[in-house]
């Protein structure tokens, strides 16, 4: 049954829906409106039926639900089996996934099995026409297909990717890229249950242990990071870093030296032994630029380095360098930002 819908894969952990999934429902609503079709949500888990109302509120018209104790934890083979079979049965034209460790495990597997295209880490999705050049019949026009827009080549180019001849068109999108829409809890929807039996040979994976803290710092998916190093000087002085991060909507990072000195917890550590990050903007404050730190952040889209030592190695990887005292520079940045916003 060809529904032509726009679908979002809903990621949930212990009954909590990932923010990125709700953000994508907002985007899917936009795309579906242009295409004049409905929005579907794929929800897999154990005792997750209660989540459907929330999915309707954020934009889903239908929830394709696979609810069973077999699906308590995400494991690749059973989950991809469900998604593949739902897609085959209902033929949506677009399926989008959060670019999380789950989404990036699942989506390529599904794309391969369905022999369709998949674009990773899109920063924008749009509907538009595409002319495929020099086919046998001359140029061929594809109407209303999905533009999958993403940076490539270390962020040096922005590519628009299309999958003209294959369905569904699929993409992953990082958390925070799309905007969550205001929920409307008066919205109602329809549940379509997936009840097929799964073959036993899919259950060859056991989750022995799962350690997951409520997210306090999420450096990997942050689009802006303000990071402090030894040069910040003290735990108290990190407040300035937090102030700048807060106003920019950024996460707070730190160098290993700052973590070792006890200025901030290890969750914030950027670098080879911490988290490797690649935000759109990385602001390094009082960080000298040890190799191990640079290895974890040098792929950032833009780097601003603030340091009072003009010879600090961090300036070698920075796009913008400000030589000066952070106690002086950061307040200026905050003021400038506020003034522009006004």
């Amino acid at each position, binding site marked *: 049954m060809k529904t032509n819908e726009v679908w979002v894969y809903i990621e949930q952990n212990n009954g909590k829906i990932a923010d990125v999934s709700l953000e994508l429902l907002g985007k899917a609503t936009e795309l579906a409106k242009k295409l004049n079709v409905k929005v579907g949500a794929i929800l897999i888990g154990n005792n997750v039926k209660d989540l459907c109302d929330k999915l309707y509120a954020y934009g889903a018209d239908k929830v394709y639900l696979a609810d069973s104790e077999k699906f308590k*934890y995400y494991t*690749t083979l059973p989950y991809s089996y469900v998604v593949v079979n739902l897609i085959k049965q209902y033929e949506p034209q677009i399926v989008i996934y959060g670019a*999380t*460790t*789950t989404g*990036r*495990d699942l*989506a*390529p*597997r599904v794309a*391969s*099995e369905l022999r369709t*295209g998949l*674009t*990773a880490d899109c920063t924008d999705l749009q509907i538009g026409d595409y002319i*495929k050049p020099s086919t046998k019949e001359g140029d061929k026009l594809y109407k209303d297909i999905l533009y999958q827009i993403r*940076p490539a*080549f*270390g962020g*040096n*180019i*922005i*590519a*628009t*990717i*299309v*999958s003209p001849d294959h369905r569904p068109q699929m993409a992953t999108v990082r958390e925070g890229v799309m905007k969550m829409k205001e929920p409307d809890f008066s919205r109602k929807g329809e549940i379509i249950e997936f009840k097929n039996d799964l073959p036993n040979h899919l259950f*060859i*994976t*056991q*989750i*022995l*242990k*799962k350690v*997951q803290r*409520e997210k306090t710092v*999420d450096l*990997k*998916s942050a689009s*802006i990071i303000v990071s402090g190093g030894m040069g910040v000087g003290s735990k108290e002085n990190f407040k300035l870093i937090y102030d700048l991060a807060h106003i920019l909507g950024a996460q707070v990072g730190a160098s290993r030296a700052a973590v070792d000195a006890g200025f901030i917890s290890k969750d914030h550590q950027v670098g080879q032994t911490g988290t490797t990050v690649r935000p*759109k*903007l990385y602001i390094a404050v009082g960080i000298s630029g040890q190799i191990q730190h640079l290895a974890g952040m040098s*792929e950032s889209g833009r780097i*601003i*380095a603030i340091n009072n030592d003009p010879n600090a190695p961090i300036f070698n990887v*920075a*796009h*913008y*360098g*400000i*030589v*000066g005292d952070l106690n*002086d*520079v950061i307040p*200026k*940045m905050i003021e*400038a*930002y506020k*003034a*522009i916003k006004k």
Partner: protein
Amino acid sequence: MIVLVKQVPDTKNVTGKAMKEDGTINRQALPAIFNPEDLNALEEALKIKETHGGKVTVITMGPPNAAQVLRESLYRGADDVILLTDRAFAGADTLATSYVLSQAIKKLGKFDIIFCGRQAIDGDTAQVGPQTAEKLGINQVTFVDKILELHRDYIVVERSIEGGYEQIKTKLPVLLTITAEANIPRPPSVKRLLAYRKALTPLELENLDEDYIRAYEINPSNSKIKVWGYQDIGCSIENCGFAGSPTKVKQIESVVLTAKEMKKIENTKEAITALMKELMAEHIIG
């Protein structure tokens, strides 16, 4: 054990030299390097070889000069290396790439573990690993930070997830994608470097003059580098390269940037305001 590696342009070190006059990147001018996390993948395989025995075969798909990453694999301890190169493979997206890789792996026959780097620094898609696993009909574990246990028919690994990790036990054979956190890759061994720097592909030999070949006692017939084209691995041509790729590039816009050519911002209210305005105009900050 099989390790899948890729030669990539060094996108991290985009210098002025690699910029064209219009501010776009000249890809040819970027040095080609061993994809960093593929070195972590190779290291995991070599560690298992040391503790459990077995053979490590490294495969790459790419242009003829991708043979360099295979030589570097030999220097570090790989037993066999295979270059998949063919005009038919050009323009491949992740699906067409994983098809070709899976065909080569099928030709090799039995294996226990396939190691890949988590992702390559040029595309950052992290898709080829899972897609290759699917094409081979085996399980996968992605984002692996640690191998905890290895037994005859199962493996226990630690996989990174948002805000934590999970420990997974799964059956062999399996494909693992390895993160940079897993290990520090060993440097090339001098002894092996001396032994294998003469491992050349037929095409590379064609470009050498005969005196050089004689002087270095290069014997093409026992080169360590196997080279396979699409017919050698039974690929159907419509599944390879551009033809086998569902995704097409509609448009490319270059991000014009002064990468690594630092712009000095004076510590004044005016200069900092101008910087913030610039970042806002480019939608880097909101």
